[in-house]
């Protein structure tokens, strides 16, 4: 029990050290722009189809599921606003972050883990390339900046899905639907949700890199790194979400 707890706290301490190292390395000059752009492409653009499909389905399904309850109150006209609000405030950020935790975090974990296992990272160090800067900083930064953009796409496509779902049972044109969506929105709905997506992205990149970078030798650990990266990233996303919502609720 004590050993188990100790291992957990050691893990947490290592993660904190890893994070501080990231912040120390990021301010150092010689930024790996080319690798950063490539990682942005991999994390952002390559995840777009997946995020788009989940976003569309979430919007569609949320509309269909909320309709019976709202029509019981005769408030069907509030459906677009309600779906847009719940998508933008909560569902699109969390679903996108979870999808990306599955795709990006595990990908980074497996990639860096296999590099670590095959001693490519050590080879980098020997050839005077800072592996932390080249591999970790670029990936974490790319994830931090790309996840919010993916969330914006998920919002937009989810609202489109809501439009499709709304038109299954009733008939409303795009202009009126958009007007209803924007009528219900406020800056309070948009900014806290957007700010928390940066933290989601950061934690996705960080956990993936940490798990991969600290993988022990042996091919078995590669799979372990990928697996635990997904689990931990998903958990941390929910914890951050809870904190963010509580803080938002406190101030507004």
């Amino acid at each position: 029990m004590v050993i188990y707890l100790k291992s957990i706290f050691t893990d947490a301490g290592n993660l904190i050290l890893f994070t501080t190292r990231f912040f120390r390395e990021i301010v150092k000059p010689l930024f790996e722009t080319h690798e950063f752009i490539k990682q942005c492409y991999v994390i952002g653009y390559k995840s777009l189809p997946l995020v788009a499909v989940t976003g569309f389905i979430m919007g569609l399904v949320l509309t269909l599921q909320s309709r019976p309850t709202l029509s019981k109150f005769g408030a069907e006209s509030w459906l677009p606003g309600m779906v847009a609000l719940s998508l933008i405030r909560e569902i699109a950020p969390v679903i996108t972050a979870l999808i990306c935790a599955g795709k990006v975090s595990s990908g980074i974990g497996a990639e860096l883990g296999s590099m670590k296992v095959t001693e490519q990272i050590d080879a980098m160090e020997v050839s005077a390339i800072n592996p932390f800067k080249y591999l970790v900083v670029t990936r974490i930064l790319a994830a931090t900046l790309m996840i919010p953009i993916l969330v914006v796409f998920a919002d937009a496509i989810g609202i489109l899905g809501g439009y499709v779902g709304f038109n299954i049972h009733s008939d409303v044109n795009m202009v009126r639907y958009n007007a209803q969506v924007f009528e219900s929105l406020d800056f309070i709905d948009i900014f806290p949700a957007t700010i928390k997506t940066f933290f989601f992205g950061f934690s996705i990149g960080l956990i993936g890199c940490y798990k991969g970078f600290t993988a022990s030798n042996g091919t078995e650990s590669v799979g372990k790194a990928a697996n635990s990266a997904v689990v931990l990233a998903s958990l941390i996303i929910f914890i951050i979400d809870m904190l963010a919502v509580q803080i938002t609720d406190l101030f507004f």
Partner: protein
Amino acid sequence: MTKDNGFTWKLGMFVTIGMLAFILTIYFVGKQKNMFGSTFLLKSHFKNVSGLKIGNNVRFSGINVGTVDAIELITDSSVVVDLLIENDVKSFIKTDAKASISSDGLMGDKVLIISSGTSAKESVKNNDILASKSAIEIEDLMKSMKKSLDNVALISEDLAQFSHKVNNSKGALSKMIIDEEFSNSLKSTLINLQTSSDEFAKFTTKMNNGKGALSKMINDEKFSRSLDSTMSNLQSGTKGLSENMEAAKSSFLLKGYFNKKEKADDLKKTNLKRQSILKQKKDSINRIILKKDTIR
């Protein structure tokens, strides 16, 4: 670097579209709040804004034309509300337009409604102050409702008591309603009353038109005048008679009789006095006895 072009443009497109969507959302939400575009400011003073919030809609003729920009307390009973209103409707809002607060549907937000003024007046300028109508508060409504309901309760209670009494008591009203005999007798009484009043009517018509002494006394002026003169003659006659009586008192033949009468009167008076004195004495004795009792 030519090798990289394959993915750079895709990344660029991805980021650009994402940013554009975000900025557009911000713009449209801001437009909803009248943050962009040309607007002007109107003010209005209220005693009570009943939950109006910054950002609530302003309606003119049922159209959303602006938003509430600020709500500030200026004195202990006066709130100034700043309204941001689109420039397009400036010419339609006249200086005598009135602002009032009502709610949007049963559960909806509060809205500020500008009711249109008379078309003859000038249109408003920037920073003008609109007159306000105090809205009917639900609380006031409830208060007056409660009052009237209380009254209704009192009235119905009285009514219940009244009807109970009517049903169960033996008063005239209940008898009138319940007792058949009573109502029959009432009916016959009324019939009698009718016949007697008919008779009376006949009598009065006779009196007005007839030539009997009574009718003459009332109607005939000549007769009444002659009656008057008769009466005055009678008066002077009685005067003479009383003079005669005085004279008779002093004549020696009747003096004895009058003296006797005077003496009898005196005796009566002295008897009365004695009786009153006796009564007083009795009272004082009683009082003394009572006092003694209380002392014991």
